[in-house]
């Protein structure tokens, strides 16, 4: 089995195992696996991982929604209109943290070392959704849901 072919197939395996792969690539993987024990073993490992996903606490979403709303209403943090530079700093982990005594601990450059501001935005959402339900919906579908929910709320 050629290394190039295995390399390509191995790139596909996570999405293949999770049912996220396009038809053409599925065909390539299905043609390759029966004759390649190495890729098959890797596929089996990925399947095992998918069979035992970390359990997300059931009430987490509710508690986050509640905390977010409280935080917004209390106004203890700036809400809208924060500068783009500050947004980039949050995304890149450049922050100035303080300890309990209020001493400034200094900048935290860990994340800034390899990504610059531009890189943080270069990305598309793709079709690779995580959990089902809302995760699997397009923005359009979500917006429709939004409309429905606001109509219900108004009724």
């Amino acid at each position, binding site marked *: 089995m050629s290394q190039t072919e295995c390399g390509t197939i*191995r790139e596909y395996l*996570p999405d293949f195992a*999770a049912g996220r792969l396009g038809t053409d690539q599925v065909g390539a993987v299905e043609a390759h696996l029966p004759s390649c024990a190495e890729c098959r073993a*890797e596929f089996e*490992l990925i399947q*095992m*991982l998918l069979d*035992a*996903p*970390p359990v*997300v*606490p059931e009430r*987490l*979403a509710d*508690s*986050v*929604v509640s*905390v*977010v709303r409280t*935080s*917004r209403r209390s106004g203890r*943090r700036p*809400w*809208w*209109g*924060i*500068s*783009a530079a*500050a*947004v*980039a700093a*949050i*995304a*890149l*982990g450049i*922050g100035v*943290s303080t*300890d309990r005594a209020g001493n400034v601990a200094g900048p*935290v450059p*860990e*994340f800034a*070392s*390899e*990504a610059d501001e531009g890189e943080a*935005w270069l*990305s*598309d*959402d*793709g079709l*690779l*959704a*995580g959990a089902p339900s*809302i*995760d699997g919906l397009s*923005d359009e579908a*979500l*917006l429709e*849901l*939004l409309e429905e929910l606001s109509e219900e*709320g108004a009724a």
Partner: protein
Amino acid sequence: MLIERARSGDDTALDLLVRRHHASAYRVALSITRRDDVAQDVVQDAFIKAFGALGGFRGDASFRTWMMTITANEARATLRKRGRWSESAIDDVGPIAADEPDPAEQAVSGHESARARTLLETLPEKQRLSVSLRIDDGLSFREIGEAIGSSEGAARVNYFHGIRRLRELME
């Protein structure tokens, strides 16, 4: 779009963003902190920060990747804080807490899938995070690079090293 609605202060849009992305954020936080309670706090703080910064978020960027990045940063910041504040912090941030059973031993009796998952948690942080984000969340290597603070190439290497190591551990 949804981000626009959220940015203008629409509660329902904000709720939907939480419900759509909280599971991925939790998995990232858990993978870094390895503690359910800490991970849940991290997710809450990460969403507060993300929504606080939405005004400057560009609508054409991926909210998901951005959210993962903020969550990963928040998780690491939390570990650092705990390191300064807690006497037992070394246990908390070490590869495996000393008072916990060895996952490798613990896993022998379990189901193979559960064993694979447990062994994944013994890998170095960037490897386990790359494997989890690629497999559980379907992120591309470029997106993983953004989320863990490395290049696309480094994310790919971390993923394949993690997979190879996991296969060795499973044997």
